[in-house]
């Protein structure tokens, strides 16, 4: 099924067609993933160029986290799919330790303070604690955490926890960052603040980011490109380039171009949501 498109919502590229940029950092082709009798992903294609900020939206249970788990090296896709990273074909397991992954919840360790949580990945890599801490301390102000380095997670607000988790991900300096709904647990207002702040940080470090969200406003506000996924089995239904100027201002969300993009995406998502709503509602377990 095709997305219903309003006239001229910007350049739209069909999913099977590869993105035209020259040397993608990550490339997925014909990726399938089956869990027992559940087909989570089927024939998924996507690519991410270096320095790009790609957002992914799709109905609940469509396989977004599964996609991330594959790219993070945690799950192997079914045989037959092609996975290329930094120009070389590889197995998912080869990616373990090569992309920096931030899961759906912050997953801070309650027994580690802010700094020690932030340097977790560095420690696993084998860096000396002192060295890692020094590195993290320098970064704190940028993450709005200056003065909080000795605090423990249970002393932080949801927004701050999320920033610590993001800092942990940033400190694990890898070519590709995977962010799985980092702001999903935040209330709408805090969320807006965090989005603006993330763009500031990204602007500065220019990492390549693949970002999952449920929120269409968020997907447009942050991304260079939005991938809309189909209902399960998941594949890419629509790739929407977001040609809004950067740096993006908060006011942009009520600008006509933004609203037009939102309309396009909403229509595509609507169709998929409707498909999966009735079935997913019966099956998806809470928490």
């Amino acid at each position, binding site marked *: 099924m095709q997305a219903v498109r309003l006239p001229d919502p910007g350049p739209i590229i069909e999913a099977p067609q590869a993105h035209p940029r020259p040397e993608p950092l990550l490339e997925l082709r014909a990726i399938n993933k089956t*869990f*027992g*009798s*559940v087909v989570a992903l089927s024939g998924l294609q996507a690519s991410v160029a270096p320095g790009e900020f790609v957002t992914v939206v799709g109905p609940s249970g469509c396989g977004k986290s599964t996609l991330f788990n594959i790219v993070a090296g945690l799950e192997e896709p079914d045989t037959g799919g092609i996975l290329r990273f930094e120009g070389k074909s590889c197995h998912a397991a080869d990616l373990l330790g090569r992309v920096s992954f931030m899961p759906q919840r912050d997953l801070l360790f309650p027994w580690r303070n802010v700094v020690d949580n932030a340097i977790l990945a560095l420690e696993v890599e084998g860096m000396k604690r002192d060295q890692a801490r020094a590195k993290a301390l320098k970064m704190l102000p940028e993450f709005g955490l200056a003065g909080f380095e000795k605090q423990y997670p249970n002393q932080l607000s949801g927004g701050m926890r999320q920033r610590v988790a993001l800092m942990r991900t940033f400190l694990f300096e890898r070519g590709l960052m995977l962010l799985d709904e980092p702001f999903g647990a935040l209330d709408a207002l805090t969320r807006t603040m965090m989005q603006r702040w993330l763009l500031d940080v990204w602007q500065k470090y220019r990492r390549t980011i693949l970002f999952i969200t449920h929120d269409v406003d968020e997907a447009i506000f942050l991304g260079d490109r939005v991938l809309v996924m189909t209902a399960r089995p998941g594949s890419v239904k629509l790739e929407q380039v977001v040609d809004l100027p950067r740096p993006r201002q908060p006011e942009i969300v009520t600008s006509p171009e933004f609203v037009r993009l939102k309309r396009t995406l909403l229509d595509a998502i609507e169709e998929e949501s409707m498909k999966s709503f009735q079935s997913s509602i*019966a*099956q998806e*377990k809470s928490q």
Partner: protein
Amino acid sequence: MSSPAATSIGGGRAAARSITMPDPLRKLIRLLLGLVLAAVIWEGAVLLFGIRPYYLPRLSTILMAMAATPRAYVDGFLRTLAETLIGFASGGAFGVLTGVVFFRVRALREMIFPIFVVSQTIPVIAFGALVVLWFGNTLLAKAIIAFYLTFFPVTVNTLLGLETVDPKQVALMRSFGASNRQLLLCLQLPTALPQIFVALRLAASLSLVGAIVGEWFGDTTGLGVLLLQAMFTENVVAIWGALLAAALLGTGFYAVIAALERRLVFWSAEQ
């Protein structure tokens, strides 16, 4: 149950399982196989390594000794079971009751709870004479010791469970105009139930300890008596016999409580 949830989530595995045989039967067979295997290892090890019967007799010797005087073991088993059950039931009920009272009346809790704690640091066996003095050589006396060991964990966990009740849920019930009694029955006790069952499982083991120790204060029937008798006549085979009977009773009772728990607090099993 054929909920869409159940079928779709575990669909693959359930299907694979159902090809062989129903679940409880499979479990039972696996259990029996495990027991037979353990028995063979026991018997074999004693023969193979020539372990002195003084340390570990052959299983067959023990079973034959038990078969020689089956009434002693059957009567002992039933008697100890009765003591255990009475102690467990009364301890459980008292534990829940005090838990609720302590939850409701803070002053009482602060006055009495520390005494409860201290009471649990006293080895019962030390005042066995008092128990006989006060309650004689009755089944009741043993049950009371089982009770003494049982009630405290239940009190603690009931209290803990009641305290985990979400104040928002209480507010919801009150917004419906619920009375204190309705609050307790509809919300607070069900919320505490999983915690209470954790304590009950522990209490199942403890009540058996109480019954056995209680039988050391002068009695003629019971697994504790058999154990003591065997210990002081240096009859290792009889010690093992009594131990096996106690193991059967302990494991069985624990399994029953655990099964009851799975049935009654079905909702927390998923977590």
